[in-house]
């Protein structure tokens, strides 16, 4: 099985969210960048587990500038065999997906796997777009992935429950919580990652369909109204009569 794992670089989950240039750009100053948790904990680790069990290879792909390389090395330290970076600066999910599809289309990957969303853009878009551009089946929001030969059995979250589905490789899948457990890279992995191949490929020509024009921060909250613990029932009354939400 040849796995292609989509890796996105995102600000650390505790990073301060602020914007510059008249609120048109994320302020990355002093921010620690990490592999998007869904890509790392679930998509990458499950691909590695399946490779370890059945053989094959795990390649990661990232669309972005050289500032992503340290994050990509982290994915290599966890165990990916090699990495590809498409040297492009997309303005939307389609821009990312079109670059991934342009690279992957003639490489014969059996499974293309991504996290269910990134924690910065939260779009859940790229994997589905890649599937369409490659004309492959797509199983989003998967919490379990098993392979027997060419056939995958997948559990996925759907509105109101969980479905067990079957799909034959090649296919595209997005990984949700439950698919695998986070792996902490060890020293051997970190050393090995330094010499693993990280191939930079030039951007393919891709049209721009959308772009972010302005960011906003949510309005600041009013001061909290405290209710004494021995009169806690007042909360229900206030939510009903004052806030009018119950």
């Amino acid at each position, binding site marked *: 099985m040849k796995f292609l794992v989509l890796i996105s670089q995102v600000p650390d*989950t*505790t990073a301060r*969210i602020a914007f510059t240039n008249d609120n048109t750009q994320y302020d990355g100053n002093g921010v620690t960048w990490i592999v998007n948790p869904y890509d790392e904990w679930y998509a990458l680790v499950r691909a590695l587990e399946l490779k370890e069990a059945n053989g094959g290879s795990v390649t990661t792909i990232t669309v972005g500038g050289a500032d992503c390389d340290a994050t990509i090395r982290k994915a290599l330290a966890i165990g990916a065999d090699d990495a590809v970076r498409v040297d492009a600066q997309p303005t*939307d*999910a*389609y821009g990312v997906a079109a670059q991934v599809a342009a690279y992957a289309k003639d490489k014969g990957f059996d499974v293309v796997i991504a996290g269910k969303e990134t*924690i*910065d853009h*939260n*779009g*859940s*878009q790229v994997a*589905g*777009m890649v*599937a*369409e*551009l490659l004309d492959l*089946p*797509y199983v*989003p929001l998967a919490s379990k992935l098993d392979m027997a030969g060419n056939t995958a*059995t997948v559990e*996925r979250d*759907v*509105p*109101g*429950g*969980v*479905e*067990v*589905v*079957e799909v*034959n490789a090649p*296919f595209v899948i*997005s990984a949700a*919580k*439950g698919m695998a457990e986070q792996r902490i890279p060890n020293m051997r992995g970190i050393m090995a990652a330094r010499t693993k191949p990280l191939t930079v490929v030039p951007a393919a020509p891709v049209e721009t*369909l*959308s*772009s*972010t*024009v302005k960011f*906003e*921060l*949510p309005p600041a*909250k*009013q001061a*909290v*109204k*405290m*209710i004494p*613990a021995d009169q*806690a*029932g007042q*909360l229900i*009354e*206030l*939510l009903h009569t004052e*806030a009018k*939400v*119950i």
Partner: protein
Amino acid sequence: MSVVVFIDTRGDKLPKAAQEALTYGKHIAAKLGGGVTAVTFGDGANLEGLGAFGATKVVVAKGVKTIESQQLTKLVADTATTEKAQVIVCVHDGTGKAVAPRVAARLKAGHVAGAIGLPNMDGGFQVKRNVFSGKAQAWVSITSPVKVISMMANSIPIESNGSPATVSDFGGDLGAARVTVKEVRKSGGGINLPEAEIVVSAGRGMKGPEFWAPVEELAKELGAATACSRPVADMHWRPHHEHVGQTGVAIRPNCYIAIGISGAIQHLAGVNQSKVIAVINKDPEAPFFKAADYGIIGDAAEVLPQLIAAAKKLNAER
């Protein structure tokens, strides 16, 4: 100049998010001077009734029973092309996430996922959406001729004053299913968390899964969905689908009641767009109080029975 709204109508009852999506589409269609065509699949009943929420036409692919993303993408894209749709609206849920990105890529249409309000169409086409897991919002400008919007639940008040729609079967070829459903496990009949208007959520402060009965009782009295924090889901005290926060579900109910949750930044990210937040925590330094509208410093075991009694009293009065 029409709008196509793709919704899942398979259950016994039309999901609230589907009603919202139709209302959302109706508002856009009114601006564009066109109608709304609802696109759906499976054997849902009363499709004429979708007219109440704004659909003038309904196109249904009865042969597709499951969320097969390629078949549904062809269904939506072909209908949009036939109807000369300028805007395609989906719901940002498990069904919409399977279909909307594919439709967008197929039609080379700009796609805004997780829209939280109607587009601004004055001189352009901009849609506001959540980014950074709800810690900020972004205005996204779509510049392609066809636009796809996936709408977050609880983004628009439902309007249901329209007249019945005309229903027709989709006549085209959708190809074979490449993803086959082997088994469906419904989650216990509670209220669907992303759509819930009231959510009662609890965390590690509950001390163990055996103490959840009063949380569920309060939720039942308030007609609320139950939710939990990440540690609670990780320790398997509660199912994963209840986990709200940055790496769980992001929700925006009218009322979020958090019991025994400290309010780490990752948790706040998933809930800070709730209209009103009430926090119950025995630690007065819990960061959640800074994000709350109402607060009670106290132990869950002491506070919950009082809340349940007050909720019962309120229900008896109304």
